[in-house]
């Protein structure tokens, strides 16, 4: 009984792990078959960016959903989702540098030093990098309490990512609005929980001193 449960968990893990690769597979097939339209470079860069964003948002959603619905088994996917976000973000930047800029360093430097949306995007990548490096269990043990503080950087990354898309709006802001609303709930939920926890702690403290 326990064994089948374990197998089920294992299968589910592999299922989720491989599903997360579907976007990159579709894009690769599309690029090889040349059916991504007149400007495949833009499609690839854009889609990789969208999926980096999606996985980041999913990774941030795991804790609130786990707490709200009591799905304890969800916790182990948080790292996977975070790493997939980093994976797609890395591909996003590589695709931009290769397909759009063609590794012309002078253009790349201009882009990431002068374009506000590119600057915030690149900072988000630089901040996500140490989180990806320290994502292993061994690092988690080594850094102890610091690990948690370090990984709070993900909140800054998410805000920079949102800014990255907001600053690219030409006229239609519906997509940015959806991402923004979801993020404000994800971060708002945490803030609210923390406030509630602080209040409870203070209340206990007060009760203790008054007695």
């Amino acid at each position, binding site marked *: 009984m326990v064994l089948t449960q374990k197998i089920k968990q294992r299968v589910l893990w592999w299922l989720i792990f491989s599903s997360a690769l579907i976007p990159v597979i*579709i894009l690769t097939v599309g690029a090889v078959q040349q059916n991504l339209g007149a400007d495949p470079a833009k499609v690839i860069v854009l889609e990789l960016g969208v999926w980096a964003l999606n996985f980041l948002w999913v990774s941030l959603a795991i804790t609130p959903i786990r707490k709200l619905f009591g799905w304890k088994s969800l916790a182990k996917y948080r790292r996977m989702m975070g790493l997939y976000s980093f994976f797609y973000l890395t591909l996003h930047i590589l695709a931009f540098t290769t397909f759009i800029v063609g590794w012309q360093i002078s253009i790349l430097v201009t882009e990431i030093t*002068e374009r506000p949306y590119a600057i915030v995007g690149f900072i988000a990548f630089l901040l996500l990098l140490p989180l990806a490096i320290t994502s292993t269990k061994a690092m988690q043990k080594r850094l102890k309490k610091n690990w948690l503080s370090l990984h709070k950087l993900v909140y800054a990354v998410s805000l920079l990512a949102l800014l990255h898309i907001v600053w690219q709006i030409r006229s239609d802001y519906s997509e940015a609005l959806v991402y923004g609303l979801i993020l404000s709930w994800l971060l708002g939920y945490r803030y609210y929980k923390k406030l509630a926890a602080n209040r409870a702690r203070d209340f206990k403290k007060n009760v203790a001193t008054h007695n």
Partner: protein
Amino acid sequence: MLILKPQKIKSSEITSESIYQQRRSFMKAALGVTSAVASSSVLALTNYELEDEKRYPGPKWLQQKTQDSVKHPSFQAKDKLTPYGDVTTYNNFYEFGTSKDAPAKRAQKFVTDPWMVEVSGAVAKPGNYHLEDFIKPHTLEERICRLRCVEGWSMVIPWMGVSLADVIKHFEPTSKAKYIEFTTLHDPKQMPEQNATFGTLDWPYVEGLRLDEAMNPLAFLATGLYGQGLPPQNGAPLRLVVPWKYGFKNIKSIVKIRFTETMPRNTWYETNPREYGFYANVNPAVDHPRWSQATERRLPSGLFSPNRIETLPFNGYAEEVAHLYKGMDLAKWY
């Protein structure tokens, strides 16, 4: 989200400009003999290598005129043509959606014939004109022009149409006419994005030119491309072509032309005056606040060898139009 489309023709399989030109002259010669086959020849003309691409013969009254187009002696860009399939599936026509493939998907039922154009303002002959009457007095010209989008990509397109100056002369602008204002159709039933809740553009789309810019021989009104009618996603049935300016100045599906004494407010300027000016001349020296304008990607652009080229002042048309802006600070009047 990504939607896979049927496999597209490789650019190497698409007819080169020279063969396209030869076939046009061949077709014209053939038509001279048997004009009875004209309507079927509209299709035959674009039958080269485009078998699985959708074609747009245009309204009946225009088909023969399109076939009789004459090549303009000077406006024949030597650049390699952007393949027909790319020209007709990669469009900025926000009335039909903000993604590049939305217009080709959502504009196919757009009714462009019959079509009325309202001419008003400082002219001796204002009125509501049938597009047919409007085009009839003119012989259509064929021009090959570069199109440079403010977003940093560019194309080369063979247009059919009439010189804007020739059309303007018909309406006899008065001395008060200093500017010309164009308006796109406003019809949310046909143009779904005009109903969008989260868009910042104010409909209908408006663009404008200074009258001397409009009278420049390079300013053009297109009624077709690639030897046939204008596809709805490219701005059928009447679209402005001002190749020395960024793409957004090339207003599509025009229903109103107004001659004014004061500078018209164009839609993108109204939306974001810091980023989009009235003049919008292609200028590698003046960056858009959010991206560089020094270079452009000429479409189609290969993945591992991006077709990145230097952007030229006035999109390479400085000889024709630079004199219009003598003494003007182009960084200020972007």
